């Protein structure tokens, strides 16, 4: 088994708010992230796929196809967007880095050919990242 990781970057804004909480609870739990006008990050996405090396091509995965899927499913939808207002998953879920990693996994999983998704890592900043390995 060989693991291959491809990186991509995108920039987006978000805010954290749960309509079931009171305004006071939202402020206490989410702090500055509760500002309804949003704030932004430069996200770095790492997608790791795994598979056997094809003896004819020497590849685990067609990198061009992986790049296209990442662009189409993630970057086109999220780059330079307000996640709460423009990405359907976050009309109902809070766009935390945890939920973002899960959403990226769900967008990519069914679209990849041959190689299997191993891990989605989303960096919100260089000092904070979340890993999702699928449902266990």
């Amino acid at each position: 088994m060989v693991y291959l990781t491809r990186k991509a970057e995108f920039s987006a804004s978000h805010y954290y708010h749960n309509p079931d909480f009171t305004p006071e609870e939202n402020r206490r739990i989410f702090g500055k992230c509760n500002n309804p006008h949003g704030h932004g990050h430069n996200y770095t996405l790492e997608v790791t796929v795994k598979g056997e090396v094809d003896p004819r091509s020497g590849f685990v995965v067609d990198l061009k196809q992986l790049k296209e899927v990442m662009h189409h499913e993630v970057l086109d939808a999220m780059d330079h967007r307000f996640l709460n207002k423009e990405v359907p998953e976050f009309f109902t879920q809070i766009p935390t880095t945890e939920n973002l990693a899960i959403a990226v996994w769900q967008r990519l999983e069914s679209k990849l050919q041959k190689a299997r998704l191993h891990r989605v890592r989303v960096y919100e900043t260089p000092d904070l990242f979340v890993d999702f390995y699928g449902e266990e």
Partner: protein
Amino acid sequence: MKAHLTRRYHFSASHRLHSEEMSATENLATYGKCNNPYGHGHNYTLEVTVSGPVDQSTGMVCNLVDLDRFVEREVLSRYDLQNLNTVQEFAQLVPTTENLSIEIFEILQRGFRQAHLEKVRLEETMMNSFEYAGSAEPTK
């Protein structure tokens, strides 16, 4: 849905690698420049990885404010800008980055209750790092 969250922290400290159980010659042979009696310093980067189900009401594994506050109070304020050899746990224990990783893991495991502690990774320089995940190997 279970996710792993990793937070990076930074602190600076000095240390001297020296074992009372070795002769001066052995210490020098084992630790080389790190045996300099005056000590030397590093900028350490600490990575703490915790895991757990993503809480549907908050979208979080744990509240980062709680993790930051705990690490600041129990780890960073203990080691930042200190000579590690003068800290209690290193009175008898050589303050290698291996031992420092284990100490930090145990501080977190004893006191941080808001998520499951997966591992601690400590970079001593950009060229070397150490991981400790308790008695078990890292899960991923």
